[in-house]
């Protein structure tokens, strides 16, 4: 069966919502795709080339190799979050959220439409960062199936978080709190730029409370075959978190929280 043939089996409202979500970010592609790729490349240059020499090696890999999975994950989670959260916020602000609220679309279809839209953007940005950085440090892709699973689950997790944030936020300022106070600190402290083995024991323990640490290290495991945490335990927790957040989204939509007065 062709791809479009398979797609035609999916419910039309869901496909429409997904199309809308993807179309929306393609219109502002500079901001949604180019910008994150450029900033990832800048990180690669600044940290990879200039500071990287002081780092030594990570299980036999160069610092550039170490860095790439973290940068990919950073682009992936940020953009997976951005797409549904800003889409929902803009729709609430402009009022066109009523189009979806008045239509006969089920809660699950709404969640999946926004979620897959966000995942698509996150994965597109992540893949683009990977492609560009492969010029400098091509990774060995040690566990490809594991790698893809982690990427999908991470993108889903942050898209779902984006839906929760988009529904909860009452103004753009509320929304800005997520990247500023949660996502960026957790990514930066989650071992994008360093291995937690260099940290003093106390801070290493604190770091282990950070879910992003597991996601970044899992992705690193997929790319390089080595990482700081147990990759299988991480994968399982990631799946549990996904399911829990899906449940939160479902409960929010079912109750009409902040959407239906």
């Amino acid at each position, binding site marked *: 069966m062709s791809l479009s043939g398979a797609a035609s089996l999916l*419910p*039309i*409202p869901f*496909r*429409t*919502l997904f*199309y*809308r979500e993807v*179309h*929306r970010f393609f*219109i502002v592609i500079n901001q949604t795709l180019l910008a994150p790729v450029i900033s990832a490349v800048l990180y690669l240059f600044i940290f990879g080339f200039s500071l990287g020499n002081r780092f030594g090696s990570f299980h036999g890999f160069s610092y550039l190799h170490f860095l790439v999975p973290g940068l990919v994950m950073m682009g992936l989670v940020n953009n997976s979050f951005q797409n549904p959260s800003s889409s929902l916020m803009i*729709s609430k602000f*402009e*009022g*066109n959220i*009523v*189009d*979806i*609220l*008045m*239509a*006969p*679309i*089920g809660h699950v279809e709404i969640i999946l439409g926004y979620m897959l839209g966000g995942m698509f953007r996150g994965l597109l940005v992540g893949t683009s960062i990977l492609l560009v950085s492969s010029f400098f440090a091509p990774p060995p892709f040690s566990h490809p199936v594991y790698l893809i699973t982690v990427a999908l689950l991470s993108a889903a997790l942050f898209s779902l978080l984006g839906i929760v944030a988009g529904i909860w936020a009452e103004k753009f300022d509320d929304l800005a709190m997520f990247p500023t106070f949660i996502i960026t600190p957790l990514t930066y402290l989650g071992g994008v730029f360093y291995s937690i083995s260099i940290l003093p024991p106390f801070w290493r323990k604190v770091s282990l409370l950070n879910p992003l640490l597991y996601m970044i290290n899992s992705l690193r495991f997929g790319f390089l075959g080595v990482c700081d945490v147990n990759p299988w335990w991480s994968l399982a927790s990631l799946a549990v978190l996904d399911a829990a957040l899906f449940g939160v989204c479902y409960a929010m939509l079912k109750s*009409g929280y902040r959407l*239906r*007065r």
Partner: protein
Amino acid sequence: MKTIPIPDPPVPALEVRSVSKNYGAVRALDGITLSIPRGELFGLLGPNGAGKSTLINIITGLVRRTSGDVKVFGYDVERDYRATRSLLGAVPQELIYDHFFTVRQTLKIQSGYYGLTGNAAWVEELLERLELKEHENKTIRELSGGMKRRLLVAKAMVHRPAILILDEPTAGVDVALRRSLWNLVRQVHAQGTTVVLTTHYLDEAEELCERVGIINHGVFVALDRKETLMQQIHNRRVTMELGARVERLPEDLASLGATLSEDGRRITLLVDRSDGSLQSLVAALGRESLPLVDFQVAGAGLEDVFLELTAEPSRGAGSRGPAGVAR
């Protein structure tokens, strides 16, 4: 799209039972009961803030009722929301749209939300009838206010709803287009669609609607056939044109509540045909020798009904309290 089975006729198109809505401390609806048989063209009237949009939004699912029951062709709007939303098409009061798309894309997406892909011919017809065809490739930003309003009407109709709800569809639409919008409404109504129309243009309601509900402070102050309501109004508006300027209004006319226009050439007053004021007026006119050149008595229109029933006690000196009240 799965077609939603519509139950047999005793079930009304719309059934609202004792619906109340509180927004915090504000009681927007206070026990509204309303039954609309299928195929009716119903007018929902009331002053600003009366609760019209709140009622409509409860029916369409945008607002949750605090208490009461709302059924669309027998389906509960909260429990069977997919069925009721498929049967409803609504034009919201606010001009809202999705800026990322053109007119045509907007209608395609709207169809998709209702599970439709094969309705291109109908969408084409809507574009033609609402005079949007030549603007189909414009983005929403490039449309004028009236065009945006028409797009909202088209959007509400892409899935051929069994009930069409229009919350002030003609606000900001020019006279010619208002007429063509009325024709469209009449046409879909003639084809069996139940229509609920909210408007502040009472001539519009008078022209289109079969039955009218006037809502004020969240309760119906009138709910009846249009003609029945207009017959209940006792007031007549009397206008007298004068051939020459009059400096002062004669005392016995002033005591009947008449007013003189600024140029001194027109006297207007409301008379109650039930309490003998008409006779007093004729007698007064016999005593005064006014340079009368024209004398008009206007019967009550829906506007008079509306004004009488929704007058605030503090402002409306002539208010007699609600007539034909259906609380």
